[in-house]
């Protein structure tokens, strides 16, 4: 099932009428545990507002009077609410109880995938389609207005920020990247002068995998087809990939898992055609 098709379970800590307050350290321990397990948690208290309810399932936790959780349901039948008494529970037991309810309600299970994917800053993006034509994994596409968008973020290769380096506007962010501006930090003039870096990468590669990605040329294709000695070709490629990994900060395992040169050429052409079609439609 795609990540987008799942609903999440929202946990609410209730400490109002009919329930006792949690000690601050118990509240912190239980919240931390649930957040580490990927749940969204709301604390309702007298002093302030929280986000309104939506159609997600709600699990209301509290130290209810008499140890009895109330029974209630949404008058409009839109929100699925459950109450659970947690008197005497430690944070492990709270987490285990929540996990049981998550499984019963078929809500999303978190943590199976590291959320690593490109996020586009549309204040900067000029819709040039370089990212679309660069990515081999079909992460990018266009919407009905031929505007670039991230369509298949779970296809993105974990820890690989390569497409952000081809964007001429520094418009592609990976918020979990270690450094700016890719992590979302403000873009500086120096960042925009990264053309030099790009040239260095292509020089380094000198016609290997990523040069093929960049040039998409017949020349590059014929070079690959002449690689008759498979072992030699593989060694050469690995050498280049290791260099690229250090120059472009691309994880070696991502580079090593690239498909065969022929498949790369096929996908590159496909991506290029998609980008070209979008650009043509824009000008019509």
């Amino acid at each position, binding site marked *: 099932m795609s*990540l*987008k098709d*799942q609903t*999440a379970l*929202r946990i609410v800590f209730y400490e109002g009428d009919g329930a006792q307050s949690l000690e*601050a350290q118990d*509240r*912190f321990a239980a*919240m*931390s545990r*649930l*957040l*580490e397990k*990927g*749940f*969204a*948690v*709301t*604390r309702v*208290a*007298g*002093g*302030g*507002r*929280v*986000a*309104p*309810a*939506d*159609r*997600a399932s709600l699990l209301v936790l509290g130290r209810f009077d008499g140890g009895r959780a109330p029974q209630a349901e949404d008058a409009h039948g839109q929100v699925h609410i459950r109450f659970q008494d947690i008197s005497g529970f430690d944070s492990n037991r709270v987490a285990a109880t929540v996990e049981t309810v998550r499984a019963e309600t078929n809500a*999303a299970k*978190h*943590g199976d*995938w*590291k*959320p690593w*994917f490109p*996020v*586009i*800053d*549309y*204040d*900067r993006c000029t819709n040039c389609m370089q990212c679309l034509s660069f990515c081999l994994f079909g992460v990018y596409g266009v919407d009905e207005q031929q505007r670039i968008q*991230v369509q298949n*973020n*779970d296809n993105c290769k974990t820890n690989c920020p390569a497409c952000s380096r081809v964007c001429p506007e520094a418009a592609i*962010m990976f*918020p*979990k990247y*270690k450094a*700016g501006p890719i*992590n*979302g*930090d*403000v*873009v*500086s*003039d*120096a960042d925009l002068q990264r053309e030099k870096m790009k040239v260095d990468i292509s020089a380094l590669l000198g016609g290997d995998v990523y040069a093929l990605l960049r040039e998409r040329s017949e020349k590059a294709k014929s070079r690959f087809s002449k690689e008759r000695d498979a072992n030699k070709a593989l060694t050469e490629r690995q050498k280049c990939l290791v260099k690229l990994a250090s120059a472009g900060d691309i994880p070696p395992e991502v580079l090593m898992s690239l498909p065969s040169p022929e498949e790369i050429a096929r996908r590159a052409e496909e991506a290029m055609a998609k980008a070209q079609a979008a650009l043509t439609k824009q000008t019509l």
Partner: protein
Amino acid sequence: MTPPRILYCNCTYAQVVPKEVKEAVLKRLCESGVAFDAVADLCEMSARQDASLKRLAEGGAVKIAACYPRAVKWLFHAAKAALPTEAAEILNMRVQSADEVCAALFNPELKPNLPAGKTTKPSAEELPKSEVAV
């Protein structure tokens, strides 16, 4: 006037926010009497286009403890849940201390700081002398 809502992001699936900062911020929130929303990882929610981002964005003025304002703005946008530019203040736990973040969270005054438009950080030569670190 009702104080802005508070939203805390735990950045669960990466170690980019210093652990001691996010723990201290969450601890202070738990010790306070305030109501707040906490999410495990805004990035994960954005990736799955979690519908709750909409309710988190649309519930009025909000202060968000997470990371860079530019990243947070476009993460919400990617999930079709635009944050209100004039009513959202982002505190950056990647670079601010827990004290700074908490002081801003508990301050009822909202200081909206979502980037609007294409901004580029000026180079050192362009900055007034007082802003250049020596």
